[in-house]
Every structure is written in C-alpha cells, then in structure tokens.
C-alpha cells in the first residue's frame, strides 16, 4: 500500500472541501449554477461526529462538480474505496420537464437509472421554467413535480424540491440546504462506519507478522482527513492522536533496528509545524516511516487542527512536551546525527513554535487561567531555546560572554555536553581561525566585581570541555594534562581548572599558557594523537556546526559575539516577558537579571540598574540572602557609576546588613568605607538613610527607668551595630513614644556628643530631660554619620546580637521609662507647738520629712518675716527625728538627752539665708533647730505669751517664716511653705502641703 502514498499526498493537497456532484440531466446547470454557489459555504451545518452526536459546524465549505467533470470520471474503483473521503457526498439531479408524457417516457427512466446506485445520497431538483403569468405552463410544472414526488419520494424521505427560475420560492434554498445537509450527514456516517470497520480489522492484526503500518496509516489519516474536510476538527485531532500512539508503539517495538533519520541536509530545521516539508514517500522505511520525520509530521497535522480550533495555547503546550520528548529521542540517536543536531533542532523548533503560536494567539481569546498557562509555556520555550543557544555559543568560544549567574549556571552546568560518536576534528587550514580564538581566549579577563569581591565563578559546564572533547576523540585518552590546560587562562570553567581560585594562581596559569601558545602558533597538524587545545576545539566545533546548521539566520546569530549577544538578549527578554505575563514573577525577575547583566556589560547602567533593582527587591523581600548577595553588588556598581548616591548608600547598607558569612571581612569593610566616604562628602541630594537592618536597638535588660515627675534622668540604650568596623556617629537621638497618649508625638532625646559604635553591642547613655508622667517606649533611632542623616526603627532581638536563632524574632516593645504622677516628695512641719516668748531667742524645730525621695544635696532657704529674726550667735542644728516621741514644750531649751530627737546633733551654718542639708539626712526624717527670736519693742524681754492684754488683732501678733527647699537630682524640685507665727501661739504649721500647691502660691 506504500505505493499509494504519493497519490494519497497529492489527493490531500488538492482536496480541501466536500464535493457535491450535480447530475445535469436537462442542461440546466449553467443557468442555476450562480444561485447554487451563492449558498456556499453552508452556514450552521448540522453533522454527526464519530460518536454519532450532532455537531453544529459554523461554516462548511463545499464545491458543486458536474458528474461529467474529469476529476470524478477518471477514478478507478480501487482508488475509490481507498480514498473514499474525496468522493461526492451528495448527488443533485437537476431535471426539467413540461410535459407529462415526456416525463413518463424519457425523464423518469433516465432518473431511475441515475439513482439506482444505493451507495450514493441523492435528491432531485425540479427546475420549472414556466413564467409566472402563464398559468397553463405553471399548472403543468406543478403536475410534473407532483409526479416526481410520487415516483421518487417516500414517506421516510423527501427527495424532491422545486425551483422556479422566474420566481423562486424563498423557501426553496432552505429546502435545498436541508436536503444537501441530510445527504452529507448520511454519507459521512456511512463512510465513518466504513473506515472504523477497516481500522478495527487492522488493529486486530497489530501484533501479527502481516501488520503493516502504512495500511493503518492511510486508513487512519483518510478518516482524519475526512473529518478535517467536514470541519469536524476535534474528531480529526483524535484520529491523529491515536495514530501517534500507535506509531510510537510500532517504533518502540523491541527487536527492530530502525533508521531514525535526521541526517539529511536541512533536517536540523524543525518541521513540527510544516507537514508538507517532506513527502511521506521520502521517509518510508521498511513497513513504516522514519521516526525523525514522521513524528514531526504527525505533530504538524495536530498543530494545524488545533490552530483551526483556535487553540494556539494547546499547540504551545503540546509543542513544548513534544520538543522535550523528541529531544530525548534525538539524544538516543545523537551519535549518528550531525554534531549538535539535537541542540540546533530544539532551537529551531522552539523558535518556530513561539512564532506560530504567538501570531495565532490574541489576548482575551481564552480564559485567564488558560492565558496564564499559555504565557508560562511561552516562557518555558524561550528558556529552553535560550539554554541550547548558550550551549552552542559556549562550544564556539563565547562562553566568557555568558553571565555566570545562578540561572545560567543551573541551566548549563547540569546539562551534558553533546555526545557525538567522535568529537569533530580540526579542519585543515584553520590555523588563522585557531589563532584568532587563542587571541580571544587570552584577551578574556574575568570581570571583577565591585568592592573587590572575589568569588569562585559559577560553573557553566558540566565538566571541562577540553577533557570532554578530547575524550571523545577516537583512540585518544585524556592525554597529557599539561597539554590539556594549554591556552586556558581563565579559571572557573570546571572543577579541575581552578581548585585554588586565587588570583595568583590564575595569573600564574595565564603566564604559562601565554608563552606556550605564542611559541607554537603553527602547530595545527590535526594529528589525532595530540590532544586538541581549547581554541582548536572551538574552531572544530564551529566548523562542524556550520555543516549542521542550515538556517542562515541561526548561523548568523553564532557568527560573532555581537550577534550572539543580540539573540541571547532577545531570548531573555521573550522569556522574562512571558513569565511576567504568566505571573511567574520569580522566573521573570531572574531573567530580568540576565538582561540587566548584558546591559551592565555594555555599560547601559541605567537600564541595568532598573532591572537589577527588580531582582534585588524580589530577593530582599523574600529574604533569600544568598541570591541577593549575588546581584546586589552589581546594582551598587551601577548606582555608583550613575551617581545615584541615595541608591548606592542604600545598597551598601543592605550589603552590610546581609548575613556576615556571605562576604569576607575585607569586603564588608569596603562596604562600610563607601558608606562613610559618601556620608562625609558633599551629597547633592542628601536623603535620610534607613539603617534599620544595620543598627538595631533595644532597652537594656531589667526594669524600666523610673523617674518622678519633673526629674531628669539618664537613659541607657543598647545598640547593635552591624558595621564590621567602628563607626562614628556625629549625633544620635532616641525617640521616646508615650504609650498612654497618642496625642503627643515621639520626643527626640539627643545625645550631646559624638559616639563611636563598635561592632556588636554598644551601651549608649543619653541625658533625659524631665518628661511628662507616663510610660515611654523606644520609638526610633535617628542620628548623623558625617553629613548623612540616618534612621533606624528596628528593634534588635532581645538576645545577644550574634544569635543564630532563626526562630526568634523581635520581642514586643516594653517600656524603657516610667515617669510617676505628681505626688508629695517632702514635708516640712513644726517640731514643737507652743507660743514664742517675745524678745528672747528660742529653738524652733522644723521637721524635714522626705517621702520616698532622696533629699541628697537639698538646700533649705529660710526667710523670716518682720518681727522675727534668726539669732546669729547660735548655730543651727540638725538631728535625726525620732518618731513616736511626745512633742512637749522644749522650745526654750536646746535639745538634750531628754529631747524626743536624737542626741546625734550636727551643727549647720546659715549662709545668705540658705542651709545645705547634710547627705545623711537625704533619706531620713530630720529636725532642723533654728534659733529664733520674736522681736517686739512694746513688750519686755521674756514676757510670757499670756501677758498680752491689749492685742489689737491676731494679725498684730503674727510672725511668718518662708521656707523653701530646693532638692532633687539637679535641684529641680522645690518645696515652699509660708507659715504664720503667733507670738502667743504655738509655731504651728504642720498641715500637709504638696509642692504643687506651693508653686501655685508663688
């Protein structure tokens, strides 16, 4: 049956729609042809699919062909059964007759003869030529039509319709379409049944020796093609799917060694979307087809149907799977295929699929989920193509131009090298090319990272290319290792090449290779015994690839570094864009990073910085610090070159705040020196710097500082510095936020002097002015490094700064300061209660009572009013006050052993009306004895109080003493009291009075 293949192909290519044959009995076709063809294509055709379910076809193209046409007449019966799908689906018998006799004698027998073939679906169109005004002729036409219906129609099936040429009935065309559709439907059902039966029979013989895939294929594809022609694309697709499964089973059947194919010129260009690229007859092999071409052919047929079904997303999705699976098949036969055939095929397949699916896809065509999936697959296709393209670039010597990023490294370092049976040899007369490559290798210089960061470059190779290539050369072992590494100055391309990774080692290797390379420029004998040098491997690969690649566009992309980078960038952009559209932000952003690297290399720092920022934002936001550490130095470099000082500073701070193990100490010192340098320079646009990740703070352990209202204090704050070295802060402010009041904003507490922060924990003390009563927490930290204002709002962990505890996190903020509500801090009261004797010096006791508050350094101001004076010849005395003793009248005698006060008396002197209270009295109640004298010129000395008969008023006898006690940490507290003294009454003033009231009295 393979002999029918060419014919089958040509029929398929020439047959595009359903054929309706016209049996023009009465030469009417030229007259009515136009009207018939205007109905094409049929709208909303109702057909049955393979499972006999009705399917509405929106548009069904068809063609009317006269039965006398050569296309229908020249077929042999065998062909008819084999290619039944192309036979007419309906026969329309056109008749006219205006005479019943003529009908009976001529027309009827002739029509009977025509329709006697049961296999055909047919109906009769009676064309009436009777003019509308000619009743006689019209009546006759009706009679003939009625006769036709009687003779040819049955109860089950109406087979006649009538067309009036001179006044067509509008319902005729609907009637005609319905009859045609009925015929097509019946024919289709019958043919499906036929093909199914044939296929079933063949399927039963699948495992028999007589089995022949061609027969199965022709039947199966005929059925599929018939569905396709009838616009039953879903059914056609199912047939191709089944055909593919059956083929794969045939191919994978053990015990048969088959020719895979793929070795002809042009096979490197994928034909997975072009079913007509190669004739099926050309790919015949034994009883089947060659796998290389036929699998692509089947996919192309499936893709064509999917495009017709308006499902480009499915083409992309199936296509990606197909490429992966077919790439695996290519790998199995790689040793027989041209060099890098697999890589080249995958690249062309991906590009073809991307192009076709994108051009067939319109946004909004599918549901959001499908659209998302479509773009994801587009991203995958771009990435796959990108990876293979990089591999080819690497083989021809552009490896040093590929960014050694994690994504490229992960893609390439695990991807095996091509495995040709023999690595391509160096072509003769390639010495100049080898020299050029060697020169290129020597000019390679590993790009130094900013801040002098030195890292072992990420690998792009699964193993050393030099060794792999030489190993694959026939009759060659690993060879002399010193020869192998010749001409290879750059390190990092494999584990063997840079075990040390130090610059000195690289330099040493470079110098050795340089002398050897230059001393033997003409040694290109191509001897198989000598291991090839790297430059030679590049040249040999390039020549071999030139033979493999037939696509001029693709070859152009590998012809120079510039073209390579251009294509590389295109693929990266395509992949990134697709991933972003599919909401795979991580994939998208990673590829943005690749684009940024290319821009960076070409000094397009602006574009590079924008893209790097996206990458860094992603990694920083998700806390993947190892990955961030790879990219952030690049961003910092771009920002520095662009003079983006704010961004650069921010990047440096971020670098410093990354895990310390990610950078060497000297690298971290470099970050810090950049921060300090910029901070002390004149920045054009100084911006506050957020150092929350670098300087953290917390209160010291223990209870919060407690102060009385109005008291200043000293607050100690623990600061953790993430800087590797000491850093000087020109100023530092701690923000205190009241927890009980949201009205008041945070208050900044400034440190008065410059502070040098050591790495790790620092205890900083700041002077605290009097605060309002309440509870305060640390809010934020602000300060200045040089000209630079910084801010940190990050609480440090409560534990030690160097904790490795991943699980701990900042603790809830707790108060650092509590300022108590106003209360009495001290009380002054009279120690005795009796009237004074006039004109006589007496001891007046004043009890000084601290109320849970230290009177350390307290100063008592005594101001006697008129008529009262302090006897200067006596010292003022102070002693501890004993509680519980009776306050008897001892005002006229100094304290003695019978006194309720302590015997431990200290003498104080009054200076300018002030007495400095001794420190020992700071926390105890003490009594101050003041020698007082009430002066009156009207009374004699020693007149007792009861001998004042003619007192005008109480006021006349009053004497006052104003007492003011200055105390507190910085004498900030004041207690004042003005008390009255009646010369005839007790010095009595022990009423409680808090200092607030005293202030009010002022």
């Amino acid at each position, binding site marked *: 049956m393979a002999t029918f293949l060419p014919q089958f192909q040509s029929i398929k290519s020439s047959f595009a729609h359903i054929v309706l044959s016209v049996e023009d009995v009465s030469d009417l076709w030229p007259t009515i042809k136009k009207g018939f063809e205007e109905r094409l294509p049929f709208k909303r055709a109702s057909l049955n699919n393979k499972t006999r379910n009705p399917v509405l076809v929106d548009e069904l193209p068809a063609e009317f062909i006269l039965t006398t046409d050569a296309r229908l007449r020249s077929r042999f019966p065998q062909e008819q059964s084999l290619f039944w799908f192309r036979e007419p689906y309906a026969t329309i018998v056109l008749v006219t007759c205006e005479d019943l006799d003529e009908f009976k004698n001529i027309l009827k027998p002739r029509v009977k003869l025509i329709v006697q073939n049961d296999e055909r679906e047919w109906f009769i169109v009676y064309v009436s030529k009777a003019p509308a005004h000619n009743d006689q002729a019209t009546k006759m036409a009706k009679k003939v039509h009625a006769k036709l219906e009687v003779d040819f129609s049955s109860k089950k099936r109406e087979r006649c319709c009538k067309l009036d040429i001179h006044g067509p009935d509008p319902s005729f065309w609907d009637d005609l379409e319905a009859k045609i559709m009925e015929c097509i439907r019946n024919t289709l059902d019958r043919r499906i049944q036929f093909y199914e039966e044939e296929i079933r029979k063949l399927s039963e013989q699948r495992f028999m020796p007589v089995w022949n895939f061609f027969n199965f294929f022709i039947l199966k594809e005929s059925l599929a093609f018939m569905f396709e022609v009838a616009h039953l694309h879903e059914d056609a697709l199912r047939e191709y799917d089944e055909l593919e499964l059956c083929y794969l089973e045939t191919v994978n059947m053990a015990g048969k060694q088959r020719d895979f194919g793929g070795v002809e010129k042009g096979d490197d260009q994928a034909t997975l979307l072009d079913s007509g690229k190669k004739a099926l007859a050309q790919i015949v092999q034994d009883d089947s087809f060659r796998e290389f071409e036929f699998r692509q052919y089947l996919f192309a047929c499936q893709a064509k149907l999917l495009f017709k079904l308006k499902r480009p997303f499915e083409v992309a999705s199936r296509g990606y799977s197909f490429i992966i699976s077919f790439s695996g098949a290519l790998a199995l036969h790689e040793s027989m295929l041209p060099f890098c055939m697999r890589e080249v095929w995958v690249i062309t397949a991906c590009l073809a699929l991307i192009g076709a699916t994108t051009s067939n896809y319109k946004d909004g065509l599918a549901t959001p989920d499908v659209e998302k999936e479509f773009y994801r697959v587009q991203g995958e296709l771009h990435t796959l193509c990108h990876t293979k393209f990089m591999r080819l670039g690497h083989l021809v010597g552009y490896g040093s131009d590929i960014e050694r990023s994690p994504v490229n*490294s992960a893609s390439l370092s695990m991807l095996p090298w091509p495995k040709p049976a023999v690595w391509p040899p160096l072509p003769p007369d390639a010495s100049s090319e080898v020299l050029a490559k060697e020169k290129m290798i020597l000019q390679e210089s590993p790009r130094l990272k900013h801040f002098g960061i030195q890292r*072992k470059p990420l690998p792009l190779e699964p193993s050393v290319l030099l060794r792999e290539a030489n190993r694959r050369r026939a009759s060659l072992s690993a060879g002399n290792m010193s020869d192998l590494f010749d001409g290879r100055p750059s390190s990092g391309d494999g584990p063997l090449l840079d075990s040390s990774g130090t610059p000195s080692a690289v330099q040493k290797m470079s110098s050795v290779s340089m002398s050897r390379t230059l001393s033997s420029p003409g040694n290109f004998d191509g001897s198989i015994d000598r291991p090839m040098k790297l430059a030679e491997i590049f040249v040999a690969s390039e020549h071999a690839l030139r033979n493999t690649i037939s696509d001029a566009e693709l070859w152009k992309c590998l012809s120079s570094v510039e073209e390579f980078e251009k294509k590389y960038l295109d693929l990266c952009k395509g992949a990134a864009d697709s991933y972003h559209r599919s909401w795979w932000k*991580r994939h998208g952003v990673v590829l943005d990073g690749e684009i940024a690297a290319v821009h960076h290399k070409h000094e397009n720092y602006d574009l590079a910085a924008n893209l790097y920022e996206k990458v860094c934002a992603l*990694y920083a936001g998700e*806390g993947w610090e*190892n*990955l961030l550490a790879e990219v952030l130095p690049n961003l910092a470099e771009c920002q520095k070159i662009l003079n983006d000082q704010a961004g650069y500073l921010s990047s440096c701070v971020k670098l410093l705040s990354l895990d310390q193990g990610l950078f060497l100490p000297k690298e971290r010192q470099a970050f810090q020196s950049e921060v300090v340098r910029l901070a002390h320079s004149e920045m054009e646009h100084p911006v506050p710097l957020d150092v929350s990740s670098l300087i953290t703070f917390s209160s010291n352990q223990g209870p919060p500082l407690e102060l009385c209202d109005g008291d200043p204090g000293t607050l100690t704050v623990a600061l953790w510095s993430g800087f590797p070295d000491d850093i000087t802060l020109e100023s530092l402010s701690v923000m205190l936020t009241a927890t009980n009041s949201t009205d008041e904003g945070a208050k900044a507490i400034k440190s008065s002097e410059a502070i040098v922060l050591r790495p790790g924990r620092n205890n900083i003390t700041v002077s605290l002015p009097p605060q309002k009563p309440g509870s305060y927490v640390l809010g934020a930290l602000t300060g200045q490094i040089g000209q630079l204002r910084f801010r940190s709002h990050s609480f440090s962990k409560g534990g030690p700064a160097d904790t490795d505890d*991943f*699980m701990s996190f900042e603790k809830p903020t707790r108060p650092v300061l509590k300022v108590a509500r106003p209360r009495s801090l001290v009380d002054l009261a009279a120690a005795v209660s009796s009237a004074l004797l006039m004109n006589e010096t007496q001891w007046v006791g004043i009890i000084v009572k601290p109320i849970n508050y230290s009177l350390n350094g307290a100063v008592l101001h005594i101001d006697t009013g008129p008529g009262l004076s302090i006897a200067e010849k006596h010292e003022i005395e102070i002693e501890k006050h004993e509680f519980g003793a009776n306050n008897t009248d001892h005002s006229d005698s100094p304290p003695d052993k019978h006194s309720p006060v302590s015997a431990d008396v200290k003498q104080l002197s009054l200076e300018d009306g002030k007495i400095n209270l001794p420190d020992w009295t700071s926390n105890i109640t003490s009594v101050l004895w003041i020698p007082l004298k009430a002066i009156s010129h009207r009374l004699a000395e020693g007149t007792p109080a009861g001998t004042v008969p003619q007192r005008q008023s109480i006021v006349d006898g009053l004497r006052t003493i104003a007492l003011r006690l200055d105390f507190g940490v910085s004498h900030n507290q004041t207690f004042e009291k003005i008390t009255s003294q009646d010369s005839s009454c007790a010095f009595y003033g022990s009423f409680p009075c808090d200092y607030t009231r005293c202030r009010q009295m002022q």
Partner: protein
Amino acid sequence: MASTACFMIVSKNDIPIYEAEVGTVPKKEDAAHQHQFILHAALDIVQDTAWTTSAMFLKAIDRFNDLVVSVYVTAGHILSFVMSDFIIHTRLMLLHDSRNEDGIKSFFQEVHELYIKASSVMFYNLI
C-alpha cells in the same frame, strides 16, 4: 551512591527559615546558590499547584535536569484558627535526585510533625 538533597523550610512570606544539605554529596561552594536558586524558582510552581490539589505532598513539581523538586505544603489555614496565623502555608521543599517518593514523603511527614511541635511553643515566633 552519593545523592544530592537540599532541604528548606519556606515560611508563609516565602522567606527561607531553614536550610540544610541533607544529601551525601559534599556541599560545593557554588552548588548552594544553585540549589537555593532552583528551590526559589520552584515557588512559582508551588503557588499555582498548591491550590489545585488537596494533597499536601506535591511530588516532583519541578525538574532541573537530574534534580527534582518535591514539596510538602502544610495545611496552615486550618491550624490558624486553633493556634495562630504563623504557620499558614509553610512549605517544606526538597531538591533531590532520589526517586524514592515514599521515602521523601515520609521524610516530609516527620519534619512536619517536628515543625508543628516547635511552632506550638508559644515562645517561638516564626517569621
């Protein structure tokens, strides 16, 4: 036979909170980046897949040549009512070259148990 296995716990905010190379292949300086990179990229797939299945163990959701990513998504949204909201959709991720799916699943289940115990201690505050 030496095997590669990189285990990570990724919190609900996609922050890696634990990482360990649990394979027998000695850790390479550059491979750590690769493993992290592959696992990080696989989060894109996890975010899509996690909502399409009720299974907690998502086997081989991503493949990178010979390396496979398997993930165990905790049912945090149930626990969030009982305890607190800090274990919503924590993901246990393993990059491996082993094909022993049952073993990997058991490993995940054991780690999940330990994780729940650790996170039940109220003194811990997971990111």
